[in-house]
């Protein structure tokens, strides 16, 4: 019997939104799925060799649990994003959640295929040399070629 398939479109490049694609992809691969992730728009940031600049912002993110209630005027102060990111990373580590780099490596190890949106790469003038090597470049039609035949297809 042919393997089940899952396709994910990853469109976000913040720390909180970077986790779901990699968690679901690595899990599906462990369950025997053929998995492909199509990275487009801000999702392309998740293909950088160095993921240390992937951040989370408390601003315009009212659902983010905060240790103390924080007025929007305070959230917009310089350094708040770095602080929120640092705190989130500490929390993730404390709870034994893998780092983004670790999860991405697990995906690659499990043969999850990464496809980067060529149009967005050109649009934002990204330098492909800043991305990891195991990436193919393609457009919407490339994605459909795989996604059209999947059991699970997600837009994140």
């Amino acid at each position, binding site marked *: 019997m042919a393997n089940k398939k899952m396709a994910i479109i990853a469109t976000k490049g913040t720390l909180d939104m970077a986790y779901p694609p990699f*968690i679901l992809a*690595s*899990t599906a*691969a*462990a*369950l*025997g799925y053929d998995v492909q992730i199509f990275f487009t728009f801000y999702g392309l940031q998740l293909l950088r060799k160095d993921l240390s600049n992937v951040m989370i912002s408390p601003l315009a993110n009212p659902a983010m649990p905060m240790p103390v209630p924080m007025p929007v005027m305070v959230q917009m102060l310089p350094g708040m994003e770095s602080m929120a990111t640092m705190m989130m990373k500490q929390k993730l580590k404390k*709870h*034994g*959640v*893998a780092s983004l780099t670790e*999860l991405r490596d*697990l995906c690659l190890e*499990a043969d999850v295929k990464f496809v980067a949106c060529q149009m967005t790469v050109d649009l934002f003038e990204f330098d492909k040399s800043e991305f990891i090597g195991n990436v193919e470049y393609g457009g919407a039609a490339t994605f459909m070629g795989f996604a059209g035949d999947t059991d699970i297809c997600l837009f994140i």
Partner: protein
Amino acid sequence: MNFDKELNARGLSCPLPIVKTKKSLADMTSGQILKVISTDTGSVKDMAAFAEQTGNPLLSTVEEKGEFIFYMKKK
């Protein structure tokens, strides 16, 4: 229960216990038993789901002092 290999997944959160279980099974032979120790409460349902979807039978699930111990047979 006798086992052939042990995976210490203590302190790891989703999806690591599952992903590491899959990796541990990869270099075992059919019929061998893998023991997995996890502290992730979510892993109880996830290990059962993994077993069902991959066809590797989950022989037993025991909770002991806040730890979950699974015995899985490689198909």
